[in-house]
């Protein structure tokens, strides 16, 4: 890249005598071994980072030297890489638009007014552009902090740090000790209605202490804090303070402490809450302590402490890495890489100032983007499940902010960006190829589509050994596992009442017959009645006598006897139809599976092949086929082995009617292996994989989205 040393616009600046304004301080800092200067503007509360060369020129601006003199002096001083005129013009222009310098000229008042209006507008827009984080400044706490900072100064010493370390360490140990108590019924406790109220009370309090941490850390090392306000983070009011004064601190550790003070304070609070929770009796105060602990611990680690989001963790991370503006610069670096290597724009200037930054910048750009997308959509989806319209609007907004706007900008850059003028062909080709490949991968590249579910071996109904009648098990006729032929007795039942009832009936039959004989010749009508009665009793008697035969439970077919009850059966009362055991035959094993509702259509219509892996065996796949289905959705599982409790994947409804009630409706299918191998163990579990052939990813995403919307929003 050849930079023009002289600029044709220089004439506009050459004779101007600029003067640094009074409300500006300059601080020296080191980033990755390179010296930078931080220009602090006390009027606007803004900070600007400049190079030593720029600082040199800035320092020469006293209202007596012309820009020409200043520039020449800078060239003499930095003769290795003197600032070019264009760079100097850019610097002066930036200083001017930041209102850091004044000139000996009458300023262009109209331009100043317009610039001011533009800045106000921009500030307004940024305030409301992200509806998930709207800031409302409230008051200036500086004097209050001045008055109180003395009392807290001891905290920001090595001793204070050790104290904090000890406290949080103790908290960690206690957490480990009480882990089960803490996590028991976590979801129930947290999301119960009364707890939500408690949490809503605890949250602003914890956050207020958090912000106080930032503010005091800033004050302790001489910074000023001039803004306290409320930020509506996903509509939840959260206090914030403007601790940007720490940017001027020379030590990166101090800057990091200011950034991390909030997290440190919250962790300490969480520990205190934990200690209280452990020692207190159950009650409101204890529940409150639990919430403080929850907010201080979990939300801090997930959100605030996460460097991938622009919260506290990010600033600490950037400070410790010594890469200021990490977020913006990593994005710039990413696009620089795209332009430089993909579009072949060799003249692009790299935003990298030190080689060691490269890896960080690249990693951060990619990781932060993915994480931000993920978080935005999760939040939007969460809100949407509660308030559909707001949630969808938020989701669209998030989509627009993080995806559509950058895409549109990218396309505008591609189609009309002046920088691309000589590279447009290549840029379009590269982007086109990328989009084509992406599209091909999504829409054309077939990827295997499968449904995997758990199955449980279920015996064939024809092999079930059922009690034919009610009775007490008297004795078992065969040894367990013995081979029996169809009709062989397996169990003998006894029913003492049965023989009595037969006897009673026989007597009543006798009596009935006599009555019949008595009236046979006298009263024809009465005789008919008696005859019917005899028939009725005869029928009843016959049924009862048949049941005597049923007292012997016989094998329904050939096979080995399996009686899960074993000898315990003896003396037990069984009812008619109870399954007492089954016969192991050489009929193929039958796996019963439960399929979730969103997959049932695929399984039913589009099953190319079925594969079975018995969990008891070596897990080698066996070809199988769909044998039958229960054509109605179920809310009760046939076996606990299919539920999550039993190692399956169907979630049970703890509040269900039966112990095996499910949360979602399921469909039951039977699968039999093709090799016809009999199952050895009833109730044995298997993984069943349905192969639905190949399908490009896009259709799957579409189907998943449709089902998500159906499930969440009924649309």
């Amino acid at each position, binding site marked *: 890249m050849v*930079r023009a*040393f002289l600029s044709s616009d220089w004439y506009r*600046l050459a004779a101007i005598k600029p003067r640094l304004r009074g409300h500006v301080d300059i601080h020296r800092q080191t980033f990755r071994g390179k010296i930078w200067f931080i220009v602090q503007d006390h009027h606007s509360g803004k900070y600007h980072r400049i190079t030593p060369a720029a600082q040199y020129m800035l320092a020469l601006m006293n209202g007596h030297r012309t820009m020409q003199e200043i520039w020449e002096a800078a060239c003499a001083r930095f003769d290795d890489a003197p600032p070019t005129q264009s760079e100097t013009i850019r610097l002066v222009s930036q200083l001017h638009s930041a209102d850091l310098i004044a000139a000996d000229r009458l300023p262009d008042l109209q*331009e100043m007014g317009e*610039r001011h209006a533009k800045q106000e507008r921009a500030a307004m827009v940024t305030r409301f552009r992200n509806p998930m984080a709207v800031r409302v400044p409230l008051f200036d706490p500086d004097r209050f902090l001045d008055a109180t900072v003395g009392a807290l100064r001891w905290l920001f010493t090595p001793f204070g740090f050790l104290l904090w370390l000890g406290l949080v360490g103790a908290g960690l140990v206690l957490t480990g000790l009480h882990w089960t108590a803490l996590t028991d019924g976590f979801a129930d406790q947290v999301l119960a209605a009364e707890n939500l109220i408690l949490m809503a009370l605890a949250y602003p309090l914890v956050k207020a202490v958090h912000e106080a941490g930032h503010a005091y850390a800033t004050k302790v090392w001489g910074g000023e804090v001039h803004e306290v306000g409320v930020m509506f983070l996903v509509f939840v009011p959260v206090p914030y303070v403007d601790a940007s004064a720490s940017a001027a601190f020379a030590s990166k550790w101090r800057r990091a402490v200011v950034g991390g003070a909030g997290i440190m304070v919250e962790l300490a609070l969480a520990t205190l809450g934990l200690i209280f929770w452990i020692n207190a009796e159950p009650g409101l105060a204890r529940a409150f302590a639990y919430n403080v602990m929850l907010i201080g611990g979990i939300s801090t680690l997930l959100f605030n402490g996460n460097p991938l989001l622009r919260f506290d963790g990010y600033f600490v991370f950037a400070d410790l890495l010594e890469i200021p503006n990490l977020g913006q610069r990593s994005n710039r670096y990413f696009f620089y890489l795209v332009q430089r290597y993909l579009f072949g724009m060799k003249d692009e200037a790299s935003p990298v100032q030190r080689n060691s930054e490269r890896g960080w910048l690249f990693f951060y750009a990619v990781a932060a983007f993915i994480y931000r997308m993920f978080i935005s959509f999760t939040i939007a989806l969460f809100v949407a499940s509660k308030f559909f319209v707001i949630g969808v609007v938020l989701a669209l907004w998030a989509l627009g902010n993080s995806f559509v706007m950058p895409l549109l900008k990218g396309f505008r850059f591609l189609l009309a960006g002046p920088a691309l003028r000589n590279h447009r062909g290549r840029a379009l080709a590269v982007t086109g190829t990328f989009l084509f490949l992406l599209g091909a991968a999504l829409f054309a590249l077939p990827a295997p589509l499968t449904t995997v579910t758990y199955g449980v071996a279920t015996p064939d109904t024809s092999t079930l050994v059922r009690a034919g009648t009610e009775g007490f098990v008297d004795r078992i006729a065969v040894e367990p596992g013995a081979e029996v032929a169809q009709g062989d007795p397996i169990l003998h039942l006894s029913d003492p009442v049965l023989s009595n009832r037969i006897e009673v009936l026989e007597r009543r039959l006798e009596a009935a017959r006599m009555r019949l004989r008595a009236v046979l010749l006298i009263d024809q009508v009465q005789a008919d009645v008696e005859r019917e009665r005899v028939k009725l009793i005869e029928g009843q008697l016959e049924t009862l006598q048949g049941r005597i035969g049923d007292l012997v439970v016989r094998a329904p077919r050939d096979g080995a006897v399996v009686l899960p009850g074993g000898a315990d059966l003896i003396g037990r009362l069984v009812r008619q139809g109870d399954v007492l055991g089954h016969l192991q035959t050489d009929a193929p094993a039958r796996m019963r599976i439960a399929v979730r509702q969103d997959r049932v259509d695929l399984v039913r219509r589009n099953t190319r092949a079925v594969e079975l892996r018995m969990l008891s065996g070596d897990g080698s796949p066996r070809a199988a086929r769909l044998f039958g289905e229960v054509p109605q959705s179920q809310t009760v599982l046939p076996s606990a082995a299919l539920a999550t409790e039993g190692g399956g994947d169907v979630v049970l409804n703890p509040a269900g009617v039966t112990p095996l009630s499910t949360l979602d409706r399921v469909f039951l299918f039977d699968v039999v292996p093709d090799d016809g191998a009999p199952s050895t163990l009833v109730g044995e579990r298997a993984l069943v994989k349905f192969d639905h052939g190949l399908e490009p990813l896009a259709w799957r995403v579409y189907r998943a989205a449709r089902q998500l919307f159906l499930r969440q929003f009924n649309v």
Partner: protein
Amino acid sequence: MSDLGIMDAAPRRVPRIRDYYEAPDRRDTTLDRWAADLNGAFVAQGARWRAWRLRPILREMERHAVAMAALDDAGLQAEAQAARIWLRRALRDQTLSVAAAGRAFALVREAADRVLGLRHYDVQALGAWAMMRGQIAEMRTGEGKTLCATLAVATTALSGRQVHVMTVNDYLAERDSAEMAPLYRFLGLSVATVLEGQDAETRQSAYGQDIVYGTNKEIAFDYLRDRAILRLKPGNLNRKLDRILPADRRAAGLRLQGLPVAIIDEADSVLIDEARTPLIISGANPQQGGLPDTTFRRAMAAARTLTEDVHFRRPRGIRRIEILPDGFEALDRMADADLDRPDTDPAFGIPVIREHLVYQALSALYLFELGDSYILRDGKVQIVDENTGRTMPDRTWSDGLHQMVELKEGLEPTAENETLSRMTYQRFFRRYACLGGMTGTAQDAAWELWSVYRLAVAKVPTNKRDIRRFARDRVFLTTEAKWQAIAERTRALHAAGAPVLIGTRSINASDAASARLSELGLPHQLLTAAQDADEAAIVAEAGQAGRITVATNMAGRGTDIKLSPDALAAGGLHVILSERHDSRRVDRQLEGRCGRQGEPGRVEAYLSLEDDLMQGPAARRVAGLAKLLARAFGPGAAGWCIRWRQKQMEAAHGRMRRDLIDQDRGMGEFLAFGGELE
């Protein structure tokens, strides 16, 4: 309390005296610009309707015609004196009512009839009225634009506003002002002409007159010079105070009196074609003194040692040098080696300067060709304008390039000129309180004229019907075949006694054409765009029977080609376009050379696939396609490729102008620190 007899007389409006009037710069937001772009598309369509809306002026003019005709000369002059009063009264916010303008037009027309012996046609009044309403009047060549302008110029001047009449070259400015001066003097108006080479005093007094003729370039440069002074003393009050100061304490003399009203001849070429490059005043500035000669020489010597494709390369399709990493390394080594030598050049040791200068040296060596980009005259490098093919004696390249070209040609490097002041034509013209113009070819540029200058186009009908005939384009594979055909055709036409005008794109092409005609023994006149009286005389003669004239499109502009009776009988002037220009408008200007005032004429275009338009890296694809088509279906089929290519060029130039405006706007914001813009 009762209010009795309240007669709330409107306060007397006294015109606000503004010293040095300039319209404030428009600060458009992005939305404004989009709106203007969109609006422009509609405005561009309404040119005929707009001309129709001008017609009331004719009725008003006729109403006063009899009264004016009845006056004797002295009476007419007295009426002109009176007009200064009633016109000024009728003036509201830079516009005149139709009634007042019509009366003034009648007065001027009567005066022109008596003084010049020329009476304005109705269409000329329409054109003048369009210009006074801040529009561009599209009038066919030969409709008498010079005379037409007098109506607008005199009326505006009588209404108390100074008028700048802009033409494209000094010759036309001088000729027009001389021809029309008697009329203006008769009306009591003073006229002056600003020409190249006049001294400051003459200019200052010229700009004091009621009517100032001059080229757009001269006036714009004078304004820019004034701005350099005004920029340091902004504010109207400042200037008024300046006036009452004794002469020696005043700000250095301003030349103009401000930018009141401008009437632009050939408006499209001034407002659009020339607006592609900004105006720059530069001078050797000892204070900012550039680099010593030795540094330039050292860099040039270093550049000569670099080899193409090893140390640097020339990317295809772009006129640019790209120094490769090896090149940078080689330069570093040279600088290191220099350190050990006694005559070390300190500036060459600085990487930024070294690399910049070597880049310029490489550009001078490999991108700029003698005879093409520049010529040597009187031991000096003179830049050749890529558009007109004319040399520009007082232009220099910036950023050390000029010095490098001089070193390449073995000349002493001159002291580097530094920019002292700079502005775009777009900004300059937008600063006029009122702007009007006329041209033969505005319609093609209507959209841009609106979106940039807020100038609408009115298509004024011709006085007599246009009976020109257009032949189908003839397309040839090679230049050779094309010229063959042109020569044949010219010979035939010459034999038939018809006058022929062959239009070329550049002086070189004119020379080639001339050589060819000489071979065939055809007597002809060759015009080299000198733009002087001789040239005008030749062009004026081009309408004689059997006359053959070869000229670039720019040559002899503004001069009518009057046909002799014989020529008229032979079918009028035959215009032969030997090549298409970068813009359709320029072609149309050439086509407009024939068929003036309803005379017969014929336009023929002879094109080849080797024309300049189809050359160059940017045209490679289109040219390839054209060759393919020509091979398959004959050369005629490739004709549209040439038009397509022309459209591409128009778009590219449009984009350049747009960039310039954007850049100008960006600079305004960027450099706000330096006070007001020029």
